């Protein structure tokens, strides 16, 4: 009989701003370690029972290099028995870690796995790894590499989303996030303390409750220059029908660049009973897919369809969605593809535009956020999905137990 993978806990740090952010002073290993200590403490975990630790981290260099998962587990004082690895499926890494953990458990080979992610974008920014995709010229020439923002703008252009549409989504993200914060909806958000027990950060500090359309409309499009300099031409090689790419995304309607970490504890039913933990939910299915890498960010819809099919479910069966707000157009495109007319059950507590997208961690953050809200509303099923560089998409379906 195949096991089911249960979710026993999912916690996260608050997300700190990139500039003069409260988490800037903490090294990524330290930030992840602190969360690991909190995870094992609040669940009274005998860490020797953990079969593996999978940590998503998209820029695994410098402070985040050399298998940060294992380094952090050791620094956290977890049992020497605990192996760990760092993985990357770019922006989807946090969710991929969870999906891999679910696979291990479902296979029956492993019984207790910690999955999550860490990204300290203030220290190790995007591009710090100077990868082949964007910097090796024969590759970028062959693959028409365009930066993600250009992809986002292309989506807006192709689907005729207006600047106002994008900004409105951004305003909503901030308002919803602020409300959720005020109403203490983020149950699994744990404060970060220093080594002396002094508080460093206890809430997502990127949120701007005062966000409004007028202020957002004043922001300069972020990818205009890059686009006109040349990247638009790369895009047009693949989309010759587009006369001109409308550059509508700004810092205000794109995800925030932040520092953050998250961990999700998954295990078999038997293991949960053994260690005295009550499961909160279980993984029904997941899926990964890939689409056109130039428009890049259209993966969420096909990944969602694929995962629902695997679970023998339809869109109507999902109570709440978390669709990563990498860029506003990503969410709007997702809704269009799946014929969803409103966001009443999508990103109900705001998203990455308001709170930030710490690349490797977001997938696990979204899952924890989703689960918290399902519990508060006493709803049953949820779906998390993210767009991923290279055109990929990833989705996971969960059900409360």
């Amino acid at each position, binding site marked *: 009989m195949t096991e089911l993978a249960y979710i026993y806990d999912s916690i996260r740090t608050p997300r700190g701003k990139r500039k003069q952010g409260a988490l*800037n002073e903490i*090294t990524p290993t330290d930030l992840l370690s602190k969360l690991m200590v909190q995870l094992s403490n609040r669940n009274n975990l005998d860490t020797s029972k953990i079969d593996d630790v999978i940590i998503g981290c998209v820029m695994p260099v410098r402070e985040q290099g050399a298998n940060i998962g294992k380094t952090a587990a050791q620094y956290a004082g977890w049992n020497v028995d605990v192996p760990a690895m760092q993985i990357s499926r770019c922006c989807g890494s946090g969710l991929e870690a969870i999906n891999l953990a679910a696979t291990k458990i479902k296979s029956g080979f492993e019984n207790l796995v910690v999955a999550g992610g860490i990204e300290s974008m203030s220290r190790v920014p995007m591009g710090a790894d100077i990868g082949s995709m964007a910097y090796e010229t024969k590759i970028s020439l062959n693959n028409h590499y365009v930066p993600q923002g250009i992809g986002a703008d292309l989506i807006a252009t192709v689907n005729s989303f207006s600047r106002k549409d994008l900004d409105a989504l951004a305003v909503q993200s901030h308002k919803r996030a602020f409300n959720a914060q005020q109403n203490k909806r983020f149950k699994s958000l744990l404060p970060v303390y220093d*080594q002396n027990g002094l508080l460093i950060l206890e809430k997502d500090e990127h949120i701007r409750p005062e966000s409004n359309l007028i202020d957002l409309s004043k922001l300069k499009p972020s990818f205009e220059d890059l686009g006109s300099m040349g990247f638009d031409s790369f895009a047009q090689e693949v989309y010759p029908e587009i006369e001109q790419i409308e550059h509508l995304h700004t810092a205000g309607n794109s995800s925030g660049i932040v520092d953050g970490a998250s961990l999700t504890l998954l295990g078999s039913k038997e293991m949960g009973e053994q260690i005295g933990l009550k499961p909160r939910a279980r993984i029904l299915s997941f899926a990964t897919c890939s689409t056109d890498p130039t428009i890049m960010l259209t993966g969420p819809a096909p990944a969602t369809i694929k995962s629902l099919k695997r679970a023998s479910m339809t869109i109507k069966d999902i109570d709440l969605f978390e669709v990563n707000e990498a860029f506003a157009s990503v969410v709007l495109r997702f809704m269009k593809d799946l014929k969803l007319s409103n966001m009443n059950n999508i990103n109900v507590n705001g998203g990455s535009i308001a709170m930030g997208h710490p690349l490797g961690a977001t997938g696990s953050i979204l899952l924890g956020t989703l689960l918290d809200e399902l519990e508060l509303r006493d709803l049953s099923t949820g779906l998390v999905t993210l767009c991923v560089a290279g055109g990929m998409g990833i989705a996971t379906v969960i059900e409360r137990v």
Partner: protein
Amino acid sequence: MIIYQKDAQNIVTLTIDGSDEHQFNAVCEDFFVDLNLHLNTIKKDKSAKGVILTSKRRSFLTGSDLDTIYKINEAQEAFDFVERRKKVLRKLENLTIPVVATINGDATGSGMEVVLACHHSIVKSSKEHKYGLPEVNFGVLPALGGIVRLTRKIGIDKSLRFLIEGVLVGAKESIECGLIDELVETEKELMTNAIKWIDVNQNYTQPWNRKNFQLPDGDAFSKMNAQILHNYPSQLRKKTRGNYPAAEKILNVVTESTLVDLAAASKIESRAFVEIITSSVSKNIITAQWFQKNDINAGLSRPSEINKTKFSKIGIIGSGLMGHGIGYVSALSGISVVLIDLDQKKANLALDKIQKLFYDAEQKKQVQPYQSKRAISSIQATDDLHRLNECDLIVEAVFEDISLKEKVIERSEEFINGKAVFASNTSTIPITRLSKKSRDPEKFIGIHFFSPVNKMQLVEIIKGEKTSSETLAKAFDYVLQLNKIPIVVNDKRGFYTSRVFERYVKEGFSLLMEGVNPQNIEFAGMQAGFPVGPLSVADEIGISLLNSIRIQEKVHLETEGKQYLKGPWDDVIDIMIKKLNRTGRVSRSGFYDYPKDSKKKLWPGLMNHFPLSTASITQNEMMDRFYFSQAIEAVKCFEEGVLSSVADANIGSIYGWGFPIFKGGVFQFINDCGLNAFKVRARELSDKYGERFVPPNSIESMIKKDQIFK
């Protein structure tokens, strides 16, 4: 504490003028309060063109306000404290007009941190003044921006020396490594160059406040620094054995502060400060190295009514190992020496040895050639006892034998002048007994130097029954004049240091007899923080000497009508001396072998004569046995009136036999445990290992009165 003046050219001069009677400006709350007030004035003054920070006293600004830091125990309080003072220095640094520090004296600790916050620093050339950040030596760390600024100013590599090793440098070297910016020769140039700099640099921004600032040699992950930081931690751990957290935390701050912006770097520094100063290790080190050492130097154990004596000429009888060492340190301190031995040949040999010591010191740049020359020329090596008449103090340092010493005292005192103090350098022979052979027991005293005399800072002064206050004061002043640390004890067998330190070796021998692996014994000793393991110590002292000591002890006890109790100590010595003829390092065979061209190694044959037991003992247990056996013996010394100063006991233990500084000395160790926990643990140890661990009664009464050792 800071005097504000503004001249006709609109230059503001802030003169630091603490009212410390010792002419040092010490960092304290007043300094920051005054500085803050003056900065607020300057900020409002649109006509001010620049600021010069200077001092009216012998030092520019020194210290780290350990008096205040010591009292802080709460994390939030510590954080607020350091952030508040840092803010003032940032205000100084962020003035829109140029700020120059003109350094006309020592600038160390927080004083140096103030200099680093200035835009430009000029130092006057001098031979005696020192510059640096020695906070690590007191178990704390510079947290007023010292780590962050120094690293950004001169780079990681050069900073480590100052921050982790606590090195102090002279004016010239401070320029060479970039700690200070400019060197001048005269006091006048300090001012004129400062004014010139202010003139030329009207729109100055501190380098690390500028956009695109890069550290010299890059951040922690630059090629050069990554190499250093890959290796440095284990090198540091090798030295500290993990017992000195401040050094490690400083290293962490140095590296981490280079990877983030100034605001985050500053927070990292502050949090490390909080962590360190609220820890017991820092309290222990401050207690010993700051409070108690200062108390000793201020004459806590010295009769205060006696005026200070400065010695110009002293005599030493016996030019052996101790004699010539005492001659060296005396001459080094500017005291003329008459060095006496049986014949001129021996005396000349001694003088040669002293010259070699000076030569070695010159090589290490501890001494200038002109100083050695002057010192050596002030030494008279002779066999003529008449020369003793010119000496204000005489130290006999002949072989450790009662009758020999008695003879020497009788014979040589015929030649000394009526005022001279006569001292015996002995580690075991009762002073009162020797004083009976002196013509004036009131002028007789014990001054026990430690070997090697040129390196060991401690001197144990032993009062005989009849020793007068004046004699004690003079002996004390002599030791201070040598730049050594005096402790004062009463005349009981073993005095203080030998008696307590013997416990370390004895415990090592007990462990050996119990079948513990000798390597584990030695490792435990070093992990506990002693310079070497107990078996190494035994070899160094010489197992044959230990044998003589125990024979003497037996004799003494019998004359007192007491019984000598045999123990593992005797078994071990019997085996080593009688059975194996392994006498110690000098004969190159003891517990260790001492091959000519390589490191010493434990003799493999040990296990044949000290069979290993299957039972195991944890390292912690061994360490506790070393600590507790010494601490309890020290308490007994107190109870028996061997000494009455906790400061002397702690400092004596640290500088006399290397009791770990991070424990603060042998009594601070007890405070650190907590007296009740100490008592409980001692009982556990006594139940397991014997009477020597029974907690002394005075501990119990101290617990009842909620007292600690101070």
